[in-house]
């Protein structure tokens, strides 16, 4: 934000005659139009909450609190407990975060601290290409190309290797399936890498050059400079970037719908099929009606609230961290 005070145009200084009524009206009208467009953001967010809450009220009143925190999903008997879906959402996006964060942060550091500036732009374009490939294409490729490869070469050997090992066996042991929490998590990781990289890069770029040069002047190697000067400054912002990525992974629909396996179950086996909230809505909504539809809309509301909270936290971190860096620059 610039601190220069903007001149008030309502009455230009030294103006011989006041603005004509028509011009003043047009000016006022445009200001109102802009205000309305700005408020539209808030209106949409409120309307999303209200409309989905209204449509899912039926589900909330029928199931009650115990039904809403239940894992029992039985369409025939009208039991719509969403917790298995929530579990799958959390597990698949945690896998995505664990895979994507080290890679994204490394690439962000590479772009800001290692590569000369004229090379960094082409690398950014390449990373952004990942974001241009549509979600459904990742899903198509995942289902037809990636899943058979994972199932036949990776999962089969890992599962037989970890079979019977105490703790790891219950995570990586059999049963295994090509479409699973892990498959969805890996593809989600690829999809959220560009956003984490670009946000982390923005934050890291605000680290004051004086700090970095100070570290070098003390004889630090580049890695020691990154740990001593860059990391303390950008920690908060990078956490924010990770949270934004988490929110994206939780809400990612189509790739998850194709790759997570479509079985609503709570299990520790990461190679087993599961379900996630957005995937469930995408796959089941077309044939749902009555309380079933109401339950799916309710799950949508649940997802909306969770992602909003995650994003609020994330933006809070990013804003605070950039502000602190600017203050010290």
């Amino acid at each position, binding site marked *: 934000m610039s601190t220069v005070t903007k001149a008030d145009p309502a009455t230009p200084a030294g103006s011989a005659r006041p603005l004509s009524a028509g011009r003043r009206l047009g000016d006022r009208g445009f200001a109102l139009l802009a205000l309305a467009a700005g408020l539209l953001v808030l209106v949409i967010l409120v309307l999303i909450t209200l409309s989905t809450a209204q449509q899912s009220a039926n589900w909330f009143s029928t199931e009650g609190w115990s039904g809403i925190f239940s894992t029992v999903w039985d369409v025939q008997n009208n039991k719509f407990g969403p917790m298995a879906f929530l579990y799958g959402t959390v597990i698949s996006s945690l896998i995505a975060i664990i895979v994507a964060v080290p890679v994204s942060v490394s690439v962000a550091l*590479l772009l800001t601290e290692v590569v000369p500036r004229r090379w960094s732009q082409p690398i950014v374009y390449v990373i952004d290409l990942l974001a241009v490939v549509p979600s459904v294409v990742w899903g198509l490729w995942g289902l037809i190309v990636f899943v058979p490869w994972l199932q036949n070469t990776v999962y089969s050997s890992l599962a037989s290797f970890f079979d019977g090992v105490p703790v790891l066996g219950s995570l990586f042991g059999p049963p295994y399936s090509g479409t699973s929490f892990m498959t969805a998590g890996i593809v989600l990781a690829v999809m959220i890498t560009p956003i984490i990289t670009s946000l982390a890069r923005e934050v890291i770029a605000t680290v004051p050059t004086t700090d970095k040069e100070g570290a070098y002047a003390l004889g630090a190697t580049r890695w020691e400079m990154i740990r001593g000067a860059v990391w303390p400054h950008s920690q908060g912002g990078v956490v924010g970037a990770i949270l934004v990525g988490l929110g994206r992974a939780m809400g990612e629909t189509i790739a998850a719908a194709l790759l997570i396996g479509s079985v609503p179950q709570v299990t520790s086996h990461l190679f087993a099929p599961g379900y996630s909230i957005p995937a469930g809505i995408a796959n089941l909504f077309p044939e749902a009606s009555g309380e079933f539809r109401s339950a799916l809309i309710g799950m949508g509301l649940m997802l909306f609230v969770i992602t909003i909270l995650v994003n609020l936290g994330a933006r809070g971190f990013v804003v605070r961290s950039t502000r602190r860096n600017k203050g010290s620059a």
Partner: protein
Amino acid sequence: MAAISPQPGGIDLTETSGWRRTKNQIATVVMWSAFALVLIPLVWVLFTVIQKGARAISWKFLTGSPIPPNVMPLSFPGGMWPAILGTLEITGFAAVIAIPLGVLGAVYINEYGGNGWLAKFIAFMADVMTGVPSIVMGLFIFTIWTLHYSYSGMAGSFALACLMLPIVIRSTYEMLLLVPDELRQASYALGATKARVTLSVVLPAAVAGITSGALLAVARAAGETAPLMFVILSTQNTNANLFAGANTALSTQIFANAQSPFVGAQDRAWGAALTLIVIAFILMLGARLITARFTRNTR
């Protein structure tokens, strides 16, 4: 290598010990291999889509109608034209809704709101809104529009517009920040009203950046599936009427065909995927060219 690294050797007072230097080299190698790791899925997916899609695409595939049933091989008459037209119409109309509103919203935040709490709050919530899952936008439009007015391509446009709006606001806002305040003050000094200054001085000064940001938002929206699937329904026939009747799009066709065990359906999915990626890439390339031109001119 590094842009700002000190020259070692010249005035190196403390000899960097072997382990410290090794650690530094390990870190550099790790960073480069992370980049290499990112390239693997990108190259793999692009290679597969181009290889399998090129086999499916033909003039007949792009312009034929209606979309043949899943079980039919590619040689069966018909093609993807209904979906291509649907994608272009739905995304185009979404852009027509979202770009002016987004630009106006950004104008409010930067030109009118200034440092007030409302403008800051709207800017913050627009950022948060970029994180709203696309499927939630689909459900939202379903509950407030499709339930009352039935399925249409326009409902799909509404859902996509909701997704694009915060992205357009964000990118426009960043471009408006770059417009020098002197330009505004000079215009005020000539007696122009604020609306005049914004419309004929500030926005034209930022138009290249705004266009490029808007194109990126359109490119993202064109590939979206989740917001469309409940609100446009699906059809095999060409429906040029955006405002009534079931419609279809490339992305929803890929989703439907990907799950099919029939080879004909999978071929159609790959062809549609290549078409969709080409559309998205053209939009992104346009945005990049405009950005490149813009930065050269202002330098």
